């Protein structure tokens, strides 16, 4: 299985022994050994095809790396974090996905016309229809502006998050969009911030230290 190691806060290292890793297009920083890169197509079938569709449908192009060797990944100095999944389901905004592989079942979750962040911020631009979901046992590497922080949510402790800072969430969580009248008047014209995402249940919400 591919081994994910964080070299530093901005670079991920993956060792391949014949497997295939999917990553955000343009994020390969360096490579050694016998690794072939290919644009990923919707052809084929099975898990990989699902994975492709999950992410490409959201407007993020993927490339696959397959072979024997090493690949370093990074993207414009954004922070990298590796989220381990032990049977849970991770929902994540597609443009925050750096890398994953076939150990996880990738899918999509319909959350309105723009994904959770898009829906909440009311952006009209045609970005995508789904938010990516990953399920199973394995790792997903995420990109964030500043470190990714996991906030624990418990039944007695719901958390509200600024949609621009939201990266994703895992566990058994329900999300609602909260419109705060106060908040609207506070920020005036900036529509994006007049909503918050409210998470209830049991799980982790990931945020970044920025409102991109």
């Amino acid at each position: 299985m591919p081994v994910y190691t964080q070299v530093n806060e901005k670079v991920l290292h993956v060792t391949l022994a014949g497997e295939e890793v999917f990553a955000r297009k343009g994020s390969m920083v360096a490579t050694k050994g016998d690794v072939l890169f290919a644009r990923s197509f919707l052809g084929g079938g099975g898990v990989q095809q699902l994975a492709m569709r999950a992410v490409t449908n959201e407007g993020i192009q993927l490339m696959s790396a397959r072979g024997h060797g090493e690949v370093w990944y990074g993207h414009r100095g954004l922070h990298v974090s590796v989220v381990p999944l032990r049977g849970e389901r991770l929902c994540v905004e597609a443009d925050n996905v750096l890398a994953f592989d076939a150990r996880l079942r990738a899918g999509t979750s319909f959350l309105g016309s723009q994904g959770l962040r898009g829906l909440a911020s009311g952006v009209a631009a045609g970005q995508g229809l789904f938010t990516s979901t990953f399920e199973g046992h394995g790792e997903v590497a995420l990109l964030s502006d500043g470190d990714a922080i996991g906030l624990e949510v418990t039944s007695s402790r719901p958390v509200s998050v600024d949609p621009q800072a939201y990266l994703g969430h895992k566990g058994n969580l329900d999300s609602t969009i909260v419109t705060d009248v106060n908040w609207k008047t506070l920020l005036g014209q900036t529509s994006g911030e007049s909503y918050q995402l409210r998470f209830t249940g049991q799980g982790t919400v990931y945020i970044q230290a920025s409102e991109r």
Partner: protein
Amino acid sequence: MTTFRLTNDRLLEVSLQGEKVMALAGAMVAYDGSVRFEKSMTGGEGLLGALKRRVTNEGMALMVASGTGTVWFANQARELTILPLRGEKLFVESRSLLAFDPSLRTDSVFTGLRGAASGHGLFTTTVEGTGNVAVMSFGHLLEFEVGPGQPLFVDPDAFVGHRGSLAQEFVFDVNWKTMVGQSSGESYQLKFTGTGVVYVQPSERK
């Protein structure tokens, strides 16, 4: 006094038990509990300050958060530093202010003739009293100690703030023009003399 804590280098965590916190509007990234956010017309400096701010462009849109719970603040993934004040006065560029204790008095003061070429305000913000201030910088904030006979020269774009009894001068150096980097039109340095601390970010990004 409101409790400030850094979750990490770029995220500020403020616990409220009925207290308030003043922050840059829009810098809330998450909260739990029961917290209310409202627009703040003044930074606590009164009507005169508000008027001055409107004129000087040194103003920042502030909000006040109150209630019971935890609020996380961040902005542009910039590095954060908590500066506790115990009765002193801190001079700080308003672009670097993220959050502060509402018991602190803020004002804007005239700092001289800079900005004519740079587009900087002619004013800078002062924060005075007892309580925490969270400042932002591109890269970790550096604290320089200035003593008698040891003036410090600072690039205006890297300047964040200062405290203590310091005099600030503008040094127009012909040679300095050769130092002009990137898009900035600066042709001066800031010179600090006296005794105190100068805060500088390791970046010429404003």
